[in-house]
């Protein structure tokens, strides 16, 4: 009777054998989307492969996944070669992946990329739109699930670092269909309350589906609208949602968000101490500087030996006077030399010499003038003699000596024509040695030929 009942192990073993002998399940080519991916510290990869109707658990051992050329991520569509077997401990059939390669991108991933692109174009992620997180907040609103690790991490971290801040939880749904609406309404409500100076919006880690509310447009819009600075903290370090892009500051984890929201009390006290110390040091330095300056002034040479200073000045004065005198003598000497020079030059320029020279020149001129005059006179005298000689030659008296005579009428006119005289007229004939008074006998007129 007892033998009719199987043990769970036996049944599972039976099922496993059934599956293992099926050749179709030994070499499966499968396509689907990765979800719930985790990379175990020992190297194996665990994930769910799914499409819109079904899912299957899958494992890729380290020996196989070390050859992967890409990093599997949630939402990624993949092409897989593997085999189906049963993991007896969980009574679960699963896919043992031997090879895997990416096949385009999963639908959620695609939706994420599309919304990201759209909001980016609308300026939702612009740095210029980011508000500054207050350094010393007084009241922080935390928009998250009231249960779970995230709210605990945030509150304990804030309380540890900066217990004087007021924290108020605004509980919301962080996954499921109505989560996005719930989160968006809470952000708007917090803004209407006028209580908070900082908001933290977030949740703990999860699959891409579980984080999806933070990728919804209405959440992004409410964060963008918020007048209160928002720190986002969704999932783990590697999960970046649309909310993270829109928020004024993104924290890698909920604990990180708390650290970014408040400063550490210990660090603040250290800072105050440091400032106080520098304050004292600066003033002490200042006083010391003034003190040193004063000491230096008091110890100055002038204060210690005033008469010495006067002596020095006296000496300096003497030397000034001395050099002044020297300077005066030198100047005087120089002037004298210059005067002497000028005098010498003036002397050489005296007109006496010129006068003498002029006189010599004048004498020469006179001499030469006399010479020329004498010469001229001699010449003229010779000329005169010549002329006189010539004159002698033409002297009519001389000619008369040669037998010529001049006849005059009674009226003393020279007779040049027969017309001037008639018979019986008295005429005079002049000779070279006297005159003869005559009477004309006859006038014979020669006929002209």
């Amino acid at each position, binding site marked *: 009777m007892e033998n009719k009942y199987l043990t769970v192990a036996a049944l599972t073993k039976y099922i496993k054998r059934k599956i293992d002998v099926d050749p179709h399940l030994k070499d499966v080519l499968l396509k689907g989307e990765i979800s719930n991916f985790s990379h175990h510290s020992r190297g194996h990869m665990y994930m769910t492969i799914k499409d819109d109707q079904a899912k299957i658990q899958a494992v890729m051992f380290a020996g196989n996944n070390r050859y992967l050329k890409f990093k599997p991520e949630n939402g990624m569509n993949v092409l897989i070669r593997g085999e189906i077997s049963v993991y007896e401990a969980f009574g679960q059939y699963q896919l043992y992946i031997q090879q895997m390669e990416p096949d385009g991108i999963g639908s959620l991933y695609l939706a994420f990329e599309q919304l990201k692109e759209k909001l980016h174009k609308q300026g939702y992620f612009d740095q210029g739109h980011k508000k500054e997180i207050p350094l*010393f907040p007084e009241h922080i609103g935390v928009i998250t699930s009231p249960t*779970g690790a995230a709210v605990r991490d945030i509150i304990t971290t804030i309380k540890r670092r900066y217990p004087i801040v007021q924290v*108020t939880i*605004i509980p919301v749904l962080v996954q499921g269909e109505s989560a996005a609406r719930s989160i968006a309404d809470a952000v708007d409500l917090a803004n209407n309350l006028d209580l908070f100076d900082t908001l933290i919006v977030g949740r703990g880690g999860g699959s891409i589906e579980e984080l999806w509310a933070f990728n919804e447009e209405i959440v992004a819009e409410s964060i963008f609208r918020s007048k209160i600075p928002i720190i986002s903290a969704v999932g783990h370090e590697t999960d970046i949602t649309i909310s993270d892009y829109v928020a004024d500051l993104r924290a890698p984890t909920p604990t990180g968000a708390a650290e970014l929201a408040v400063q550490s009390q210990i660090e603040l006290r250290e800072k105050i101490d440091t*400032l106080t110390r520098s304050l004292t040091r600066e003033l002490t330095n*200042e006083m010391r500087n003034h003190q040193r300056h004063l000491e230096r002034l008091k110890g100055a040479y002038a204060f210690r030996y005033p008469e010495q200073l006067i002596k020095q000045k006296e000496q300096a004065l003497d030397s000034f006077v001395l050099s002044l005198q020297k300077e005066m003598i030198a100047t005087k000497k120089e002037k004298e030399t210059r005067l002497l020079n000028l005098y010498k030059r003036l002397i050489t320029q005296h007109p006496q010499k010129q006068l003498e020279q002029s006189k010599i020149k004048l004498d020469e001129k006179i001499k030469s003038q006399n010479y020329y005059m004498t010469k001229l006179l001699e010449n003229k005298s010779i000329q005169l003699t010549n002329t006189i000689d010539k004159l002698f030659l033409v002297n009519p008296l001389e000619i008369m000596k040669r037998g010529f005579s001049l006849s005059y009428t009674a009226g003393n006119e020279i007779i040049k024509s027969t017309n001037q005289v008639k018979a019986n007229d008295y005429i005079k004939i002049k000779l070279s040695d006297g005159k003869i008074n005559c009477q004309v006998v006859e006038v014979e007129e020669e006929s002209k030929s």
Partner: protein
Amino acid sequence: MKTDELTFEEAMEKLEAIVEKLEEGDVPLEKAINYYQEGMTLSKLCGDKLNSVQEKMTQIMNEQGEFAPFEIQEEQ
């Protein structure tokens, strides 16, 4: 503005500004002493604010917008 009317943040900012001014030097001695006294007052104020303020209770807002004390629940 009187120092006891300052918020913690304002007091910290003033304290930092005073230290910076003194560090720059070129402050006449009388003024430096005034700065020092003001800085020490601010330093004490900041420390007091950190010490004296009572730890605030975390609260949660219910659906009616009312506040209630909040206790962290450990995960089940």
